[in-house]
C-alpha cells in the first residue's frame, strides 16, 4: 500500500498531468488522444485527496459516484476495488472518466478548486475502470431475487443503459430497444474513436448485458412498435431515445452536396466506420478546406474528425466568442493544438456552390456582442457591411439538435413541450402518463452524457418505487 502522506504535504502537490498523443502525430490517426494515467500517476494524484467529510465532489456527481472511497482504494493500490466502488453507482465508468465534463461537476466543487487545481477525479475514474477492464476484474454481484416485472427502455444511449443496469441490479427484467444496428446511442454514433474508443463502449455495454439486460437492436420504437404497444407488454417504460434530429440554419445553399449535418458526418465516421473506407463500405467525403458551424463538443468532434480524414484546413465558425462557446475547455484546447482555427463572432449567411452542387465558398458576416439575451449570454449582432466569403469546399453544420418526434407520436398521453421534448418531473422523471418515465436529451435537448446518466438513475429509482407499490402499466 502506498503511504498516507500528511495533509500539508498533499496540499503542496500539483495535479498530475495525463500524457497525450503528440498533436502532429494524432491528426493522422483515430487513436485515443489522452493516454491515461500509469499506476504511479494515479497513486500520486489519489494521494492528494483530502477525503473530505462530507465530500462535496459526490454532491456534484449526477451518477452519485462514491468519489473519496474509490480514490482511497487507489491510494491503497486496490485498483480492482476502486472500480468496484465506482460500479456501485455508475455502470459506465470508463466512458464517464473520458467524456464527463468533470470541471463542471465533481471537480468544480472539489475543495482544491479554490486554488484552481482540483483532484483529477475523471482521470482517476478512467484509470480505475481501464485497469479493471484490462485485468478482467469480475464484479461480484450480490444474489438478487428476480422480480416478476418487465421494464422496457427505449434507446441504448447513456440514459437508457444506466436505467437498465440499475433496474437489472434490483432484479427487474429489462429489455432495451435500439433503432440502429448497434447499441450505445450517441456513445457509438456521435463521439469519435479518438475521444471514446468503441472497444470501451462495447465492453461497458457487455457488462450491462451480463446483468441480464436484453438488447433488441433494429427496432424503431414509434415505427416498428409503438409506445402504446409496449404498454401492453411491459409494466413500466423509460423513454430515452435522444434528441436526434439535426438542426439547420435555413440559409441558402444548405443542401449543396458537401454540406453535412454533424450527425451525418459523425455517424458515417463513427457508427459506420467510414474512416476505414473502403475496408468498411460506407463512404465519406472530406474537403480540403472545411468549415464547421457551431462551437459545442459536437463541432469540435466534427472538426477534428475532418482533419484526421485529410482536410488541409479546418475552421470552426461561431457567432459568439470563446467565452460563450459551449464546448469543454479541454476539447477546444485539443482542437487548437491540432491546428484547427476558431473564427469567433462570425455568422454564415449563405453557402455558395457551382452548377454541380459542389461547395465553393461560404459567405459570412462579422458579429459583435450586444445586451444579454434570455439565455444570459450577450446577444450577437451583425456588423453592417462586414460580409466576406470564406474559401471552403465543405461545410459541416453542428449548431445542435432538436427532438425527433417519432417516439412521441406513438405515445398516447405522454405530453411534450413546445420543442417536442417530453415534459417530466425533474426528480422522478415521470411523464404525464402513469408508468411512463423519460430522461436524457429527449427531455432536455442536447446536454451531456453525465446528465443523461443522472436521469437514468433517477428514473430507475422512481420505476422501482412505482412497481414496488404494486402499480403496473399492464392490465392484469
Amino acid at each position, binding site marked *: 500500500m502506498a503511504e498516507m502522506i500528511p495533509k500539508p504535504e498533499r496540499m503542496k502537490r500539483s495535479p498530475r498531468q495525463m500524457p497525450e498523443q503528440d498533436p502532429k502525430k494524432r491528426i493522422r490517426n483515430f487513436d485515443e488522444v489522452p493516454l491515461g494515467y500509469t499506476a504511479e500517476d494515479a497513486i500520486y494524484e489519489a494521494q492528494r485527496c483530502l477525503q473530505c467529510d462530507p465530500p462535496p465532489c459526490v454532491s456534484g456527481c449526477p451518477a452519485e459516484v462514491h468519489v473519496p472511497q474509490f480514490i482511497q482504494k487507489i491510494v491503497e493500490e486496490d485498483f480492482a476495488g476502486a472500480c468496484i466502488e465506482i460500479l456501485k453507482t455508475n455502470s459506465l465508468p470508463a466512458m464517464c472518466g473520458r467524456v464527463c465534463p468533470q470541471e463542471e461537476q465533481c471537480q468544480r466543487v472539489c475543495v482544491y478548486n479554490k486554488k484552481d487545481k482540483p483532484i483529477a477525479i475523471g482521470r482517476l475514474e478512467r484509470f480505475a475502470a481501464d485497469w479493471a477492464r484490462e485485468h478482467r476484474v469480475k464484479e461480484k454481484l450480490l444474489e438478487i431475487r428476480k422480480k416478476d416485472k418487465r421494464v422496457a427502455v427505449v434507446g441504448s444511449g447513456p440514459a437508457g443503459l444506466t436505467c437498465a443496469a440499475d433496474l437489472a441490479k434490483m432484479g427487474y427484467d429489462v429489455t432495451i430497444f435500439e433503432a440502429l444496428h448497434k447499441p450505445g446511442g450517441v456513445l457509438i454514433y456521435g463521439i469519435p474513436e479518438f475521444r471514446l474508443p468503441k472497444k470501451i463502449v462495447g465492453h461497458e455495454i457487455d457488462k450491462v448485458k451480463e446483468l441480464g439486460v436484453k438488447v433488441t437492436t433494429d427496432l424503431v420504437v414509434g*415505427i416498428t412498435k409503438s409506445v402504446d404497444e409496449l404498454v401492453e407488454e411491459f409494466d413500466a417504460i423509460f423513454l430515452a431515445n435522444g434528441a*436526434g434530429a*439535426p438542426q439547420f440554419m435555413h440559409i441558402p445553399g444548405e443542401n449543396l452536396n458537401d454540406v453535412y449535418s454533424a*450527425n451525418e458526418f459523425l455517424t458515417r465516421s463513427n*457508427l*459506420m466506420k467510414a474512416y476505414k473506407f*473502403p475496408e468498411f*463500405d*460506407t463512404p465519406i*467525403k472530406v474537403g480540403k478546406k472545411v468549415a464547421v458551424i457551431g462551437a459545442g463538443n459536437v463541432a469540435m468532434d466534427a472538426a477534428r474528425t475532418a482533419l484526421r480524414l485529410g482536410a488541409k484546413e479546418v475552421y470552426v465558425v461561431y457567432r459568439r466568442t470563446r467565452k460563450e462557446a459551449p464546448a469543454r475547455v479541454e476539447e477546444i484546447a485539443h482542437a487548437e493544438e491540432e491546428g484547427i482555427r476558431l473564427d469567433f463572432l462570425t455568422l454564415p449567411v449563405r453557402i455558395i456552390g457551382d452548377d454541380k452542387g459542389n461547395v465553393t465558398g461560404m459567405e459570412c458576416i462579422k458579429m459583435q456582442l450586444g445586451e444579454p439575451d434570455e439565455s444570459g449570454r450577450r446577444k450577437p449582432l451583425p456588423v453592417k457591411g462586414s460580409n466576406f466569403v470564406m474559401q471552403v469546399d465543405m461545410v459541416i453544420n453542428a449548431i445542435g439538435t432538436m427532438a425527433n418526434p417519432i417516439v412521441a407520436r406513438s405515445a398516447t398521453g405522454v405530453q411534450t413541450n413546445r420543442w417536442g421534448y417530453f415534459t417530466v418531473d425533474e426528480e422522478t422523471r415521470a411523464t404525464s402518463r402513469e408508468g411512463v418515465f423519460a430522461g436524457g436529451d429527449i427531455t432536455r435537448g442536447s446536454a451531456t452524457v453525465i446528465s443523461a446518466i443522472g436521469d437514468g438513475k433517477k428514473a430507475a429509482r422512481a420505476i422501482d418505487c412505482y412497481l414496488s407499490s404494486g402499480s403496473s402499466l399492464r392490465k392484469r
Partner: protein
Amino acid sequence: MGRIITKRKIAPEIISLEIEAPAVAEKAKPGQFVILMTDERGERIPLTIADYDRQRGSVRVVSQVVGKTTAKLSRLNEGDELFSFVGPLGKPSDINRYGTIVVVGGGTGIACIYPIARELKEAGNRVITIIGARTKELVIMEEELRKVSTELLISTDDGSYGKKGFVTDVLEEVLRKEKDVKKVWAIGPAPMMRAVCKATKPYNVETIVSLNAIMVDGTGMCGTCRVTVDGETKFTCVDGPEFNGHLVDWAEFMNRLARYGQLEKSSFETYKRERGKDNG
C-alpha cells in the same frame, strides 16, 4: 429477423428476396421501405418494400446489382441472415378511392409500384399500369402486375418487348386518351421520374414520386436524404419517400444522389477485382 427465406433471380442482375421479418411485415404498407446491411462492415441501404406477407411474417425486396452492397446482397443465399434489417420506414402511400390512376414503374421501380397498384385496385380504382425497362429480359413482375391492374402497358427502350420507347411515351398516349386521370404514381431511376413529372405537368395531374435518396439511419437523425420540395427542406426518410414530383427540386436531388459516385465506383471495382481473385 433478417433471414432470407427465398431468393429468386428474376432478371439478369436482379434478384427478389423474401426476408423473414414478422415485426416489419405486420406494420408494412405500400410505399414504405426498409434499411438493410449485408454484414458488419456493410453500408446501410434503403430498399422499397416490394411486397409483404403478414401470415408468413415476411417482407419482399427486389434489388439490382449496381454497386458493392447490392453485389454482396446478390451473393447471399436462402437461409443466410442479413446483418441488419429494419423497417417499415417512411410514410405509406396515400391510398384512396380516386378513380382512374396511372402507375408507372421503371427498372427495379417496377417492384416498388406493385404493392401500390395492388392496394389502389383493391380500394376500387381503375389502375392503368405502365412498366418499362431497357430491354425485354429486364421487364420484371409482369404477371403479378397484370393481376392487380385494370390495364398493363409495357415499353422497352430497344423495342424488344411492348412498345419501343420510354415509359413516358406510353404515358403521354394514355394522358391524351384518358380524360380523367386523377393521379399518377411514378417510381424508378431519378431521370425517369423527372421525365414523368415533365410529361404530366401540362395535363396538371398530380404526380407522386418515390425518392431513392442516400440514407444512413432512415429515422430522421442524420439528414443525408435532404431534398427541397416546394422550396422547403424535407427529409426523404421521414417526410417521404413519396413527394409531389412537380414540387421536387430535381437538379439538387440528382446532384445529391451522385455525391459519393466516385467513391462508390472505386469501391465496387476493388470488390470485383478481389472477387475475381477469389474465383481464380
